[in-house]
């Protein structure tokens, strides 16, 4: 690591970046709020005015040792609504999360290539030629482009003042007409990404970075402007810049900020697109050891072991990534959902693991969650006593899932999404259509998580084996569940230890596919108000805790208060099963129909990585899972004892990083419930 990089790393780690922030005075805040609203009643125009004022108010001062500039100075900025206005506008609507555009991926390739001026021209052209277009939106788009250009110019001045006049010139040109070099492309990305955050959209993903940045790198290497070492340094400095302001970008917990980056995969024709930059990015993340950007890696059955080994080096570092996605499953799965093949081949991930298409999709991949464990529990409580055969219970489960889907989907329209003119500028086609991205795009599909999957399967397995194939009476089981097995320790023991479980026992596999099938069928053929489909998935997000709170004792012996597994992972009570059994069990062919995203999460003890041999074996393990048809995998390197110690003595483990559900965060900053779940899941397997 170069001296410069060390200073930049220290600048972030020691919190000096925060020291340069400021808050607006109450008077200035009120003035700005007034100025935003003066833009008129149109939310688009107000959003544009807000961004414009925000950027003008920002301080632009380059550090003497930084080459990639852009750092937040303002912590809070006024919103676009008058008091009470937001509530009134949202009333009668479905408000997803903050009611803002989020979790999508910009058309970074085209924007970096052509800059903002052609887009400005397009907006004006549509305004002139298309009477149907949303004129306020187009004016707002132009205003954001002008504001962002002016902002970039100010940073260009700052670069000039810090003795980097060439870089300043490059930035001025890049924002207008596209980047001419690798450095300019990185710098432009940095500031555009900054402006996205400033424009109040969030979970701003990075997309397929090694694809759209490669041409800039190749050109510089070819003409001798950069050599590989210099390019690597620059890349690392750029990666580091994601961590400057990330503490301001908090989702459910600190660290949940959606700065996810995708590497590898194939091109539009399906040919392998792994390139020089793929490995450089993996190395950069390895060198820096920072939470952001969060690395994802697309792989398939032809991916060589060497790439997995690079990935395993990163896993060894303990940041909880890379997260692997299998092209052989994801692409056909997306095509089944109606995505064009070339778009499916271009998939990236949203903030966590949901598969989305850059530039052309306004998918909301986490709009609802199907509480699978809860639905099965409800059926067992309601119907078990009346079921003659196990198949009768399954039929009830199927019907209950369909019914739950009705309930989940009913309130989702009409959707309220705040206009996002600047995000629209960075997408493909919004300016031509004269329509804000919040109103929709080529793809407008909604994703539905499936929570508590493994425990849904385990409950059914226990009932099948012990009630329908054994001598356990429904009465005894239900009584036990009602009382949390207070008077029936023997039954509790049997359910937890003797009943079959997914991740260990063969009989679980067909049932797992069956249940995934019900979930897929329950959403198939339904359309949302935008004409999009509903995509079932295997992720849980934070619902693994939320839904767990709603549950009593379950038929698989889970007791009240015990967490559910996160995402597509075995029950935390699973014993006598190791990584091979778990990986094989969760490489389910049926995930092709539940491809919204949601990985199998596997915890590896850090001793596995002792020596190079362990590294190669982890790579072989991941390759094995992908070759078996597993769709998505996320590995954690943890040490159970370290986590316990960190909970007891947070001051000793300030920089301990763990994967939470679709993102990595600093362990000591998480709420205790999340810490506890992570500690519990490290106990199985190794």
């Amino acid at each position, binding site marked *: 690591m170069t001296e410069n990089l060390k200073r930049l790393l220290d600048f972030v780690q020691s919190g000096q970046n925060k020291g340069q922030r400021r808050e607006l005075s109450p008077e200035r805040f009120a003035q700005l709020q007034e100025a935003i609203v003066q833009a008129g009643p149109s939310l688009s125009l107000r959003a544009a005015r807000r961004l414009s004022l925000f950027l003008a108010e920002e301080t632009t001062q380059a550090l003497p040792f930084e080459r990639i500039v852009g750092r937040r100075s303002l912590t809070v900025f006024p919103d676009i609504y008058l008091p009470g206005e937001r509530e009134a506008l949202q009333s009668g609507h479905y408000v997803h999360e903050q009611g803002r555009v989020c979790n999508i991926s910009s058309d970074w390739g085209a924007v970096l290539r052509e800059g903002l001026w052609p887009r400005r021209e397009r907006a004006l052209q549509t305004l002139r030629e298309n009477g149907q277009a949303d004129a306020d939106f187009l004016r707002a788009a132009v205003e954001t482009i002008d504001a962002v250009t002016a902002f970039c110019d100010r940073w260009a001045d700052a670069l000039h003042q810090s003795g980097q006049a060439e870089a300043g010139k490059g930035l001025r040109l890049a924002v207008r007409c596209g980047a001419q070099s690798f450095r300019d492309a990185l710098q432009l990305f940095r500031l555009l990404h900054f402006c996205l955050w400033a424009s109040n959209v969030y979970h701003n993903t990075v997309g397929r970075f090694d694809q759209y940045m490669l041409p800039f790198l190749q050109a510089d290497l070819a003409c001798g402007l950069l050599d590989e070492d210099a390019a690597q340094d620059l890349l690392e400095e750029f990666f580091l810049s994601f961590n400057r302001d990330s503490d301001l970008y908090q989702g459910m917990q600190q660290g949940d900020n959606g700065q996810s980056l995708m590497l590898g995969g194939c091109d539009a024709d399906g040919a392998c697109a792994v390139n020089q930059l793929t490995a450089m990015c993996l190395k950069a993340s390895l060198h820096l050891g920072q939470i952001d950007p969060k690395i994802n890696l697309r792989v398939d059955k032809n991916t060589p072991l060497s790439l997995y080994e690079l990935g395993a080096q990163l896993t060894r570092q303990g940041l909880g990534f890379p997260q692997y996605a299998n092209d052989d499953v994801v692409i056909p799965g997306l095509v089944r959902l109606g995505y064009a093949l070339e778009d499916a081949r271009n998939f990236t991930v949203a903030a966590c693991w949901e598969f989305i298409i850059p530039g052309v999709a306004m998918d909301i991949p986490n709009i609802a969650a199907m509480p699978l464990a809860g639905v099965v529990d409800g059926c067992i409580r309601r119907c078990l006593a009346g079921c003659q055969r196990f198949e009768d219970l399954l039929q009830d489960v199927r019907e209950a899932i369909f019914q739950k889907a009705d309930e989940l989907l009913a309130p989702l329209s009409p959707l309220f999404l705040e206009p996002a003119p600047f995000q629209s500028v960075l997408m493909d086609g919004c300016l031509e259509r004269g329509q804000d991205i919040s109103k929709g795009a080529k793809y407008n599909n909604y994703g539905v998580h499936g929570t508590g999957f493994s425990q849904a399967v385990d409950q059914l397995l226990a009932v099948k084996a012990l009630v329908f194939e054994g001598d356990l009476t429904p009465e005894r089981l239900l009584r036990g569940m009602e009382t949390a097995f207070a008077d029936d320790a023997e039954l509790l023991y*049997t359910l*937890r230890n003797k009943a079959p479980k997914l991740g260990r026992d063969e009989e679980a596999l067909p049932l797992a596919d069956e249940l995934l099938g019900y979930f897929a069928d329950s959403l198939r053929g339904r359309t949302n108000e935008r004409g999009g489909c509903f995509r079932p998935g295997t992720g849980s997000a934070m619902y693994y805790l939320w839904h767990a709170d709603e549950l009593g004792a379950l038929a698989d012996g889970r007791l009240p208060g015990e967490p559910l597994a996160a995402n597509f992972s075995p029950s935390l009570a699973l014993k006598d099963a190791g990584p091979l059994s778990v990986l*094989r069990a969760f490489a389910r062919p049926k995930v092709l129909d539940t491809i919204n995203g949601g990985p199998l999460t596997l915890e590896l003890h850090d001793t596995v990585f*002792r020596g190079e041999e362990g590294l190669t074996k982890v790579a*072989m*393990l991941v390759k094995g899972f992908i070759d078996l048809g597993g769709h998505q995998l996320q590995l954690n390197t943890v040490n159970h004892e370290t986590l316990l110690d960190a909970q007891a003595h947070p001051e000793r483990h300030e920089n301990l990083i763990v994967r939470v559900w679709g993102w990595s965060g600093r362990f000591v900053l998480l709420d205790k419930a999340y810490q506890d779940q992570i500690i519990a899941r490290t106990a199985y397997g190794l």
Partner: protein
Amino acid sequence: MKGLVFHVEEFAVFDGPGLRTAVFLKGCPLRCNWCHNPEGLEMRVQRLKNAERCTHCGACVRACPNPGQPCTACGRCLPACRQGLLSLSGEWMEASELAGRLLRNRALLQGVSFTGGEALLQPDFMLETISLLDGLHCLVETCGHVPSRDFRRVCAALDMVYFDVKLADSQQHRRYTGQGNELILENLAWLKREGPPFVARVPLIPGVNDGADNLEATAALLEGAPRLLRVELLPYNKNAGAKYSLLSLAYRPSFDESRPINADVAPFTRHGLEARVL
């Protein structure tokens, strides 16, 4: 036939090439002072109890059919404990059952390592299991203190052997493991001459066998074996005592655990052997 298995560990990273599962067989002829698998010593099923979290509610005692008598590991107390603190170590399994369980993961599995305890105390069970493993790469990790006939007939069926060499001096060997090393050296001699490829493993116990003399003598013992792949030095694990309380036993090492370990590969290198520290 049946064998007594006390653990099956998938993805055993340090016990042979490729993606492997390690099978732990119960029973051991040695009583090494530093043993970290005390539940593997006796060739009988044993009850384990996580005493640390026990609230002494008495439910397990009430469930016991022979209170006050030595435990027969009948398992009747296990379901009585609501906290799940009780378990049995050791399960008599048919070779076909074990092989079936291993082969379920055939798609990901490249090898099986038999360990323990001392796996070679159950030679017929091992041979039958190996014969059912569909040609998978098989190896044993052994202390070498088993009847030569058993040692040879099982090793002949294996692809590789991990052979422990603890102490070159027989007296010292007896002092720390309860047995002299004559039988071990006899088996080692055969292994060097006629056995499959093997790895020699030396657990480095501070002040017991990590002295220059013993390492030199060990290196000399291992010389002249064309099929010796390498020597692996395994520094003493300070968590060795972790599982003794499960058996209501105390871990009492007769050496100073905190003493620095002399993990020196030089004596082996001098004898032309490839050696590494794990």
